[in-house]
């Protein structure tokens, strides 16, 4: 998330809108954005609507034992088609912005 914020201008320059999604409430996300200085869109999915449809539910991993999302990234083009994705096998390993920008530049 930090690396996306750092490269936000580059993402916007190639016409890509980063969107973060988690089970956090809008208030919690708002607090996070203010504290960390994130200026891109954050969506709240407490009922696992999108997280469930993308098959990313990680059962019982929240602090209160509730279900959360596993980390994952999808690049979707203007026709709504998935053009690239990363389902990490290790929560410490995430996609690097250079990697995503490379793919993004190839989009029309």
């Amino acid at each position, binding site marked *: *998330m930090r*690396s*996306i914020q750092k490269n936000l201008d580059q*993402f*916007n320059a*190639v*016409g*890509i*809108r980063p*969107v973060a*999604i*988690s*089970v*956090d409430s*809008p208030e*919690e*996300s*708002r607090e996070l*954005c203010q504290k960390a200085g994130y200026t891109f*869109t*954050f*969506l*709240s999915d407490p009922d696992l*609507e*999108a*997280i469930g449809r*993308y*098959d990313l*539910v*990680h059962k019982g*991993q*929240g602090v*209160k034992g509730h279900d*959360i*999302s596993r*980390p*994952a*990234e*999808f*690049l*979707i*083009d*203007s026709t*709504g*088609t*998935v*053009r*690239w*994705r990363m*389902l990490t*096998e*290790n*929560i*410490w*390993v*995430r996609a690097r912005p250079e990697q*995503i920008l490379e793919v*993004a530049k190839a*989009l*029309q």
Partner: protein
Amino acid sequence: MSTARCQSHNNLLCRPGGNEKLTHRLIELGRYLTETIPPSGGGNRRGQNEYCLVRPQNFAYNCATLIKKFNWPIWSGLLVSIFALLSYPLLFVNWPVTRDFPWANIALFVVAAFLLFVGIRRAFAPGRRRLSKILSALGALLSVLVLGMFILVAFIGSRWLPASTRAPQVSQKAPGFTLNDTNDKPVSLTELVLQPINGKPAKGVLLVFYRGYW
């Protein structure tokens, strides 16, 4: 315990009229503690000085000896290993190079292992007290536990992830959704894809699903 002897010591423990029995015990304890320590300089004869723990010049000498005897490689090794564990989630996750594979933390654990090896050798060298051996072994054991926790956090627990076999594949249609943003305003995937960015038509959306801060 003779008063004459006490006076010759000019010792805090040996005030005339003090508790003779307690004083005697303390002096005995002092003798025990300083048994192996040669008397400090200053021209004092051995018999006079050997168990005067509280005398300022002896106190300094005993402190120096304790510091010298202290098995610092063991305890600094333990500290380094604790730092090696905590610095991964708190510090080294900030850079992709040290996050994708915890090189820096492994290097720190190697340093800790070296210090522990030196410390253990020192603790089990001839002439060390049993207490030193027990404490050093305990310090080393704690460090091994810290290493175990690191392996669990960095390599094992971090891979306990759902299979996500039904997650949309490349070239498949992305499932739509409508979710609230941080202003409690509902936003749909279609809107996100179509909304222009800085006045120019958007080419796409990068969905970043994350665990959240719960």
